[in-house]
Structures are given as C-alpha cells and as structure tokens.
C-alpha cells in the first residue's frame, strides 16, 4: 500500500466527520444523542475530531428511561463533563408525571414511552437535527434508512418516501416543525465500533467487561437481578461471570456469559460470535417489524 491509502476505519471515520460538519454547517439547533453506550462514545470522539479545537457546537441529549443501568448514567455524566459539553437529560418519569407520555395498563417497559419524551425534548429546545449512533447492520429496518433521515412534524419516518442520497450530498432542508435525524455511523458494523474504540483508546462503561452478577434465566436469556427484575418464585438466581454486548434498559438487556475483560478480548469474542448483537434485546424480538413500527412513530 502506498502512503495515500486509508484503511477501512479511516474511511469510515472521514465519512462520519464529513457528516458531522455538514450538520454543523446546515442546521441552526442540532443536538447529539449521547447515552454512554459504545456507539455514542464513538460519536463523541468523531465530534471532537470534527470540531476541535473549538468547543462542540451542539449539546448532548439523553432520554433517561429511569431503567438505565446506573453504571451507564454515571459514565454519561462524567464523559460530558470531561469534554466540557452541555448535557441535557429528559426523563420518561417526568414525561409520565406531566402527561406527555401515558403508559398503557400494565406497561412496564419504557421503550415506547421514550418516543413522546424525545419528541417533547426536541420541541422544548427547538432542535432541528439530532445526531444518533444507529448503525445499518443492527436491524433490517435500519438497513434501509438514510444518513439524513427526514422526520415530519410528528417525528415520523416514512420509509417509502425517503430523500435519495447521492454521492456525499445531503439534503438537510426543512420546513418549520420538521426535523432531521442524522446517523454518521450508518456504515459501521459492531466490529468497526470496537476496533475504533481500541484504536482511539476510548473508555467504555464497566458493564461491557466481564464481571460477576446475579442473573435469572428468562425468555431464553440471562437477565440481571435488580429492583426492577426481582426473581420469580420458581426462578433460580445464578451468580455468573457476564457482560453486556448491547445496552438497552435494565429490564430487557440480556447478559452474556463471557470472560472478556478488555477490548481485545471483546473483539476476539465478536469475531467468533454466532448471534447478532440485537439477539440479546427483548425489545426487538416482539415481531418481525418491531423496529420499523417504532421508527415510524418517531423512535431514533
């Protein structure tokens, strides 16, 4: 290879930086969705690469479902502070309290309820663009989404009527009330994300690494025992060496048994993996079109 060669991570990086800067150039009030998960950790590093030595020209936004792993929120707050970034957190609990989000009878999951919470935050701050860490390799509906994903006045995605995206020319034009979701990591795979974390020496929350945790077997996966997931009378509580591969809410995220305690181990584990990342997320298993339906309603 000559010296004018970029490897696959460098290609993905420059594509993502270009997209970040297009957002800064074309939108008045953008925000970056930061959960503290591995994908949004990469997004933050890309934002640094796009905008330093300036301060980040956009605040960080997180919808707190109230069912987050505590390690994740601790990491989120600390990382935002390290970067000197403004962090806006909007809670599903508050949205329920003031009637913005209304749980159905017996609805425990906060998955659906984060949608109205997010839309209310977008309205409150008049955000015209939210950068998110979604990747196309995660799920079949996401595989069809553009980098610049147009949302109408109700936050809805219309998969049959997406703007063509040609070369690296993104159409960010909006009418009042509409907004854009932008996904710079669209072309990244789970493996790319970990390789980038390794190359950039990025810190990730401790729950990605192997640790001991009490779990119960439910719905074909190991769920972490906690206040929201108490063991049922017939369930055996096991003390396992586990980690998370993908982080959702604490009530639906399956732990995987794993001895991987550093990034290199995780990369080796993914290379040998025989199930996809979202195989451990109960929220996607509801039906074939679970993600499609949530996105149409305004999900990330």
């Amino acid at each position, binding site marked *: 290879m*000559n010296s*004018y*060669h*970029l*490897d*696959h991570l*460098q*290609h*993905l*990086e*420059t*594509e993502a*930086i*270009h997209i970040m*800067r*297009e957002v*800064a*150039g074309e939108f008045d009030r953008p925000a970056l969705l930061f959960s503290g998960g591995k994908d949004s950790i990469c997004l933050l590093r890309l934002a640094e*690469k*796009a*905008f*330093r*030595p*300036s*301060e980040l020209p956009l605040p960080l936004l997180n919808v707190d479902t109230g069912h987050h792993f505590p390690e994740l929120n601790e990491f989120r707050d600390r990382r935002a502070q390290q970067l*000197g970034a403004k962090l806006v957190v909007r809670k599903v609990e508050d949205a329920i309290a003031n009637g913005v989000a209304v749980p159905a009878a017996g609805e425990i999951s906060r998955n659906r309820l984060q949608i109205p919470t997010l839309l209310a935050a977008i309205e409150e701050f008049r955000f015209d663009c939210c950068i998110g860490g979604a990747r*196309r*390799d995660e*799920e*079949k*509906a996401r*595989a*069809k989404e553009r980098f610049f994903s147009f949302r109408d006045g109700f936050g809805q995605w219309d*998969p*049959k009527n997406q*703007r*063509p*995206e*040609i*070369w*690296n*020319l993104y*159409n960010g*034009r909006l*009418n009042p009330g509409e907004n854009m979701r932008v996904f710079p990591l*669209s*072309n990244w*795979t789970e*493996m790319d994300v970990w390789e980038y974390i390794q190359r950039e020496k990025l810190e990730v929350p401790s729950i990605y690494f192997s640790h001991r945790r009490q779990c119960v077997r439910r719905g074909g996966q190991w769920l972490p025992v906690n206040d929201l997931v108490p063991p049922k009378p017939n369930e055996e509580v096991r003390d396992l060496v586990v980690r998370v591969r993908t982080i959702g809410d604490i009530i639906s995220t399956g732990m995987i048994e794993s001895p991987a305690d550093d990034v290199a181990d995780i*990369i*080796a584990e993914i*290379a040998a*993996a025989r*199930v*996809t990342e*979202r*195989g451990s997320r109960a929220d996607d298993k509801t039906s*074939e*079109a679970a993600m*499609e339906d949530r996105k149409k309603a305004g999900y990330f």
Partner: protein
Amino acid sequence: MNVPVDILRFNTCGSVDDGKSTLIGRLLYDSKSLMEDQLEALERSADITGGGQINLANLTDGLRAEREQGITIDVAYRYFATPRRKFIIADTPGHVQYTRNMVTGASSANLSIVLVDARAGVIEQSRRHTAIAALLRIPHLVVAVNKMDLVDWSEQRFLEIRAQFEEFLPRLDIKDVKFIPLSALNGDNVVEPSPHTPWYVGPTLLGHLESVHIASDWNLNGFRLPVQWVNRPNNPTDPKLHDFRGFSGQIAGGIVRTGQKVIALPAGIVTTVKQIWTYDGPVEQAFCPQSVTLVLEHDIDVSRGSTIIGTDQLPGASSQLQAEICWMHPRPLQPGKKYFLKHTTQTVQAAVTEIVSKLNMATLDAEPEPAALAMNDIGEIRLRTAKPIVFDGYATNRLTGSFILIEQGSNATVAAGMLLPPREIVKPENGDYVI
C-alpha cells in the same frame, strides 16, 4: 486478528425476480456472515410464508410491505467481511419506478453487479442499469448471469448473453467488465466454484470482489477542499489557540502540503498553508478523502461554500453549467422554475434554461429537444446559477463534478446531476491577487 485492509462498496441491480436479494443472501450465507439468530428468524418466516422453504431474500427485504409483496422497495445496506476485504452492499431495486434508488445506491459504489436472468437475456432494465452505472462512472462492472441452472448450464447461452451486452457496451464508457455465470439460489460460482461450469475459467463472484483493484478509485490530482465549517474557537481547548482560525472540510481531490500555495475561491486570493490541523496533531500532508482543518497564512474571506484549491490543475468557475441529470421525482422538470442546487458545500438557486437531450433507454441514443424530463429519465441540460460555482467535470472528479437539485417548498431531492467539463478554467492572474 487479521484486519481487512480496505472497503469495497458495491451495488446489485437487475429487474424484479432476477434474484438480487437471493444473491446477497447467498453471499452472506456462504461466506458465513450470517448469525444464528438471523437464520432462526429466516426459518421462522419460512414456516409462515414459504411452506418451510428458507427464502434468502427475506434477509434483505426489511420492511413489512416488502415481505408481504415479495419486492424490494428501497435501498438496503448490508455489511460483511472476509479476511481480505470489508464489503458494503447496496441492494438496489429493479422496478422502473425506483431507478432513483439505484442511483442512490450506486453513486458511491466502486463496483456494480448487474444481474441478468439467463432465460430472459438482456432486457431494457439491463440496458438501463448498465447505462446508469456508466453515467455514474462506477469504475468496475460485473454482469452476473443468474439462474444458469434453468438453462442447463449452457455455455452457448452464456456467450449469447455476453454478445448481447457487447453490442451496446462500446457505446458506454466502462473500463472494466466481468461476466460470471452463476446460480444464486444454489450457490454455484457465488462463493464456491461450480462443478457445472467446467467451461468457465474465471473467478467466483466473491473471488472477484475480493481481488478487484480499487486503490486508485480516489482522485489524487488537483487539490480541492470545499469548506464545510469555519473553525473559530471562543473557548479553545488549548488557550494558546485563542486566535485560531481554521477551515474544516473533507478533501475532495488531490493532496495538500504544509507550506504550499493555495487559492481561496471565489475570492481568488493566493495564500499559503500554514498548518494542516487535525485532532491527532498537525500533519505535513493530507489527501483525498481525508477530513482536515487548514490554517492559512493570511486572514482572508473564506466561509462555508468557499473552495480552497491548489495552483495546478485548476477547476472551472461559472454560473452557466451543462450537465447530465437523472430526474428522480414524480413532478417533471420544469424549465425556468427555480430550484436549489447543492454542489459540494454550497447551496445556490438555479434555473434550468434548456433540456438539450434525453437518453432513449431502448437504443441508448441521446434524442434532441425532448418535451420534458420525467421521473427516471436521464438527459442533458443547461442551467444557470444565481452565483458562480467552482467545479470540475464529473469525469475528472466525482465529488466536485456532482450536484443535486432540490425543489423549493417541498424540499424534495428531485435530480442528481453530473457536470460536463468546464469551458473556461479559473485564471488566478499571477501576483494581482497575492496579499
């Protein structure tokens, strides 16, 4: 761990039922890029809809309407890697009405796969897709002659189809074409060589994708930096950078070095590159398609939409443009109507002054003075912009030679445009513009 060294982006196109999605499913399946839960999901849907038969197309047809109607309605992106390369697939649908999606999927591709049903041979869709690949100047083309099992693996049939392509290929500007006989359904010549084609000595499809030369697909001649964002810290991360003023963008062509002379357009001012700033520290040189921040010697008027160029291989600058376009919207092109034109990092108003010709997809002839350009038509136009843009011909540089048209009001992206070479190049009259 063996990390793939580079990325190949390719798209698949063909008409309905040529087996595009099956081919992608087969590539993923045979290269062991599918996971157990994906296979389980496939089997689940097979029980419901397929009478127990696994349908590889279900892997890529992600939306409910597609599964129900058995069609692909939008570009689906798939990812897989082998020890030799990492691949990004754009699965682009074949129906006439979705040509715009093919243009979307193909515009950033290194390689296009055109699928042909061995029984049907070349049809209008095959010509259309090949012509679009040529128009977009995709460097490599693969003609995958599929369903060879249904023509008894006949070499003669394969050669007939090849001859049908070779009738019109010389009229299109495609440098590298490869013909491969295969069966996506059964996996012959996709990943594993087929025992049924002893007469075929070429590589399997995956073998070709892994080895085709793509290192020179980027343009390293003629430095171009369209400025995306002016980097002026109010509270810089390093207090010493209080007076920092940099111009951030992705290099769209060529190479830039610290200390070299550059010209800032449209101002036309010649200055020197003081520093190439990156998050990982300053670098001596940078090249297309890296993203950088340039610090210039003089404090000059540069903002988003400006272009910083080198002093050789100069671009054109004009408000009178000529281009080939693909129309992508149900409302036809209206000459005289004002559209927004987005080119590199600037958006200007533009009006089409003339429709010069329209491409006849059956004959591949350019027919002069067409009445209109409608959805999925390809034609040549002249247009006028509200202010001059700095550009290259698309054949020279895909990034500085392309644009989109946006309809005012609806904000719909209505056309993809490829600029013809400039008639006049920028003339930085030496000395006059130097500060």
